[in-house]
């Protein structure tokens, strides 16, 4: 099918297009130079903003963790439900929507690519089953490898190349996309009832330190030539004073970076940027982190913005979730995933009037506004940990308008307001900068060549928003902007119009992207390895890998490794 999007104001930061009035032409799901004007279906985008489809680098949308969260929280569903239509399925959920609804809601906001960031390898099949059922978007998932026994064993012995082969095998057999580390070392220590408090604490039994794990996997990542960097959830997350750990984590891989290329992604950085010695003296460490990131080029971050709402926190960080349960007294789930990781879920409500929550809200925005180069910081809420992804339009309003920030500042805890840096920040993002934070930057960091831009040959994933950048000043009319980004005028996925003004027009299956990592001599599945499977796991080796036919729409990306 041919498509012609006429006269929109196009923002395409990867190709340097900044609000130019131009036509976008689409043929067979790709962006092309020109189409036959008579045959093509035309979309009149005059007075509208055209951007590449949104990319979300970090949102928990599928897997056993998310599903357990759904089971744990019937109260999250009963007030927020969608009836079925002729095209869409019914669904429920505010902070953890059911799979189909997740896809529809992303499509309504103009998002077309999303990344599910934590998949215990053991639960890979479950995760892919849910991803298969998440329509409208292309997706990928990161296996959790930071506390996998094989990795810990090889890093203890210093066998980086051997470790890389196993990581390659794991990524390919779980159909993953990047290396995810959550509280490296801490999750294994949690199995022994402990945690690690700094980068140099030893993990019980294995005797490796978080520093060795991060550096080891960072080297592995480089050896394997993976498109994304390592994706790190830092140690000490959610503890006052942890901004130092976040800085240490970035510093420890400083020497591994080559040619200003990023080698580490610190995810939901807001949760890792607390200053102070306890909750009462907690302050924002955003300034220090922003200063470091401004002076170095080897790290990227995402915000992990907090929204004042009722949500569900879920991470693989078991010890942190236990602490959160102790703090809030809410119901909780904690789980040890055999040899690989742990996990925890706690429902949580962020309150405006709470000092700590208000400071957290401030930290996220401070990070985004203090980091000069927006190719290094991306907009997320760490859905659903900071708030559901459906609140992205509110964050957009806060980022683009000082007035919007002030309106919220007025309502938050007064002590937090007096300590917030936000009143001193004048920066207001433009549409171009917003396009970097929400799509181009994320696609670049993920190494997605055909996403996040509108150049010739790119996937025809396009979002058209009903806001005129020439006549609308986002700084003053932030409500108009918020409304426009809530319901995209048109969402185009793979060259098809899938949503219009918040209405789903067509149900399309998105592809599951995964890495086919090719190493020169792959690991042999020996009897020894099978014995380890039998000893360590509840699953036999034969049942462990996810085969390609398990994915409904498989999109393998071949990567040639250096080992």
């Amino acid at each position, binding site marked *: 099918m041919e498509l012609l999007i006429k006269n929109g104001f196009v923002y395409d930061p990867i190709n340097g297009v900044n609000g130019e009035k131009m036509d976008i032409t689409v043929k067979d799901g790709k962006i092309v130079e020109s189409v036959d004007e008579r045959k093509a279906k035309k979309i009149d985008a005059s007075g509208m903003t055209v951007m590449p489809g949104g990319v979300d680098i970090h949102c928990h949308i599928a897997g056993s963790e998310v599903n357990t969260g759904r089971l744990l929280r019937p*109260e999250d569903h009963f007030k927020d439900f969608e009836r079925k239509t002729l095209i869409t399925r019914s669904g429920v959920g505010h902070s953890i929507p059911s799979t189909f609804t997740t896809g529809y809601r992303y499509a309504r906001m103009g998002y077309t690519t999303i990344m599910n960031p934590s998949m215990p390898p053991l639960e890979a099949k479950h995760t892919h089953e849910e991803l298969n059922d998440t329509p409208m978007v292309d997706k990928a998932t990161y296996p959790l490898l930071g506390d996998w026994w094989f990795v810990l064993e090889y890093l203890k012995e210093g066998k980086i190349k051997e470790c890389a082969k196993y990581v390659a095998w794991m990524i390919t057999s779980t159909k993953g996309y990047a290396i995810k580390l959550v509280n490296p070392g801490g999750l294994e220590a949690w199995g022994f009832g402990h945690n690690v408090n700094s980068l140099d604490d030893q993990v019980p039994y294995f005797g490796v330190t978080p520093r060795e794990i991060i550096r080891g996997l960072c080297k592995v990542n480089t050896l394997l030539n993976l498109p994304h960097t390592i994706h790190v959830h830092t140690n000490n997350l959610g503890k006052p004073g942890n901004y130092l750990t976040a800085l240490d984590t970035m510093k420890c891989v400083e020497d591994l970076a080559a040619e200003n290329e990023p080698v580490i992604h610190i995810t939901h950085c807001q949760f890792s940027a607390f200053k102070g010695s306890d909750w009462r003296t907690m302050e924002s460490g955003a300034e220090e982190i922003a200063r470091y990131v401004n002076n170095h080029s080897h790290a990227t971050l995402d915000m992990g913005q907090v929204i004042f709402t009722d949500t569900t926190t879920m991470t693989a960080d078991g010890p942190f979730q236990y602490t959160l349960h102790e703090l809030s007294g809410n119901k909780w789930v904690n789980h040890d995933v055999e040899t690989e990781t742990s996990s925890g879920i706690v429902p949580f409500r962020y309150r405006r009037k709470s000092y700590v929550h208000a400071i957290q809200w401030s930290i996220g925005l401070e990070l985004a506004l203090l980091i000069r180069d927006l190719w290094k910081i991306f907009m997320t809420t760490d859905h659903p940990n900071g708030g559901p992804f459906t609140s992205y339009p509110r964050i957009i309003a806060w980022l683009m308008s000082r007035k919007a920030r002030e309106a919220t500042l007025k309502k938050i805890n007064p002590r937090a307001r007096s300590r917030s840096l936000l009143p001193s920040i004048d920066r207001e993002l433009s549409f171009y900068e917003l396009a970097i934070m929400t799509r181009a930057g994320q696609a670049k960091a993920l190494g997605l060549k055909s996403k996040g831009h509108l150049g010739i040959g790119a996937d025809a994933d396009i979002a058209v928003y009903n806001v005129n950048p020439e006549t609308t000043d986002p700084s003053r009319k932030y409500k108009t902007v918020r409304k426009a980004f809530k319901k995209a005028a048109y969402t185009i996925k793979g060259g098809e119009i899938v949503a219009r003004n918040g209405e789903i027009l067509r149900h399309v299956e998105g592809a599951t992207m995964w890495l086919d990592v090719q190493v020169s001599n792959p690991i042999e599945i020996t009897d020894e390895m099978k014995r380890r499977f039998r000893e360590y796991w509840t699953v036999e080796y034969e049942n462990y890998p996810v085969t390609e036919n398990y994915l409904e729409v498989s999109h393998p990306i071949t990567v040639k490794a250096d080992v």
Partner: protein
Amino acid sequence: MINLYPLKEFKFPIITECMNPDVFQGKTREEIDGLKIWEGNKQKRLGDLFRVEEVKKENQLEKTTITIRGDVNKLRRIGSCMKSGEMRIHGDAGMHLGEEMEGGKITVRGNVGGWAGSMMKGGTIEIHGNASDYLGAPYRGISRGMRGGKIIVYGNVGNEAGAYMRKGIIKIYGSAGQFVGLRMRNGTIYVQKDSEGRAGACMTGGKIVVGGFLESVLPTFTIDSVKKKVKIEEGDVIEGPFYLFLGDLTENGKGKLYVLKEKNPHLSHYERLL
């Protein structure tokens, strides 16, 4: 005043969020007829299911009163979120009666289904028949139960009455099932007759008064004293003597469980511990 007569015997559950004096206030008969309502999976008009009869009010400022005459045990969420006015039901009512109501009054001259007065914040519910399980208890998964108001039941109630209660009064003039006041934090529950047991499990505060037979008190409650009488609310004092137990100690709770001495001679061994 508006009278509603069911036109048929309902087979499918009907969600009646609109059946609420605040919604009816100031509407003409035709407008009320046209209100949207779900019967099973089909959307209908209220007029398709009920005959609406309007009785002229003498005083225009008077709050709307809705009277339903007939069995409406398939109707769910009657009077949910109502803030004022009155509802009278002459027949049985379905689940979630008066869910999250904030004011006004609901009177049922019949039995009601589960979750009556669920998460209510104010107002009064009077049930002349029996109430099913989860009286005044919140929806599954929510830990904020009843936050105010008053529920009076003249018949018996099912299990878990007043679960997660935070404030308000529940008076039951019949007997109650198991787990009365499960996880309650505050407020008062009075059961005039027997209770099936496990009263006050995991309670952290509040008051439960059992005026009938209670088979056993949970082992995580300790005896505190014997009281001559208990005050339920202003102007309502029940003469005892009552055993007063404190608990639930599994939750470090300070809830009070009063059990009538006269009907429970099998609990007399607790007196040795005083």
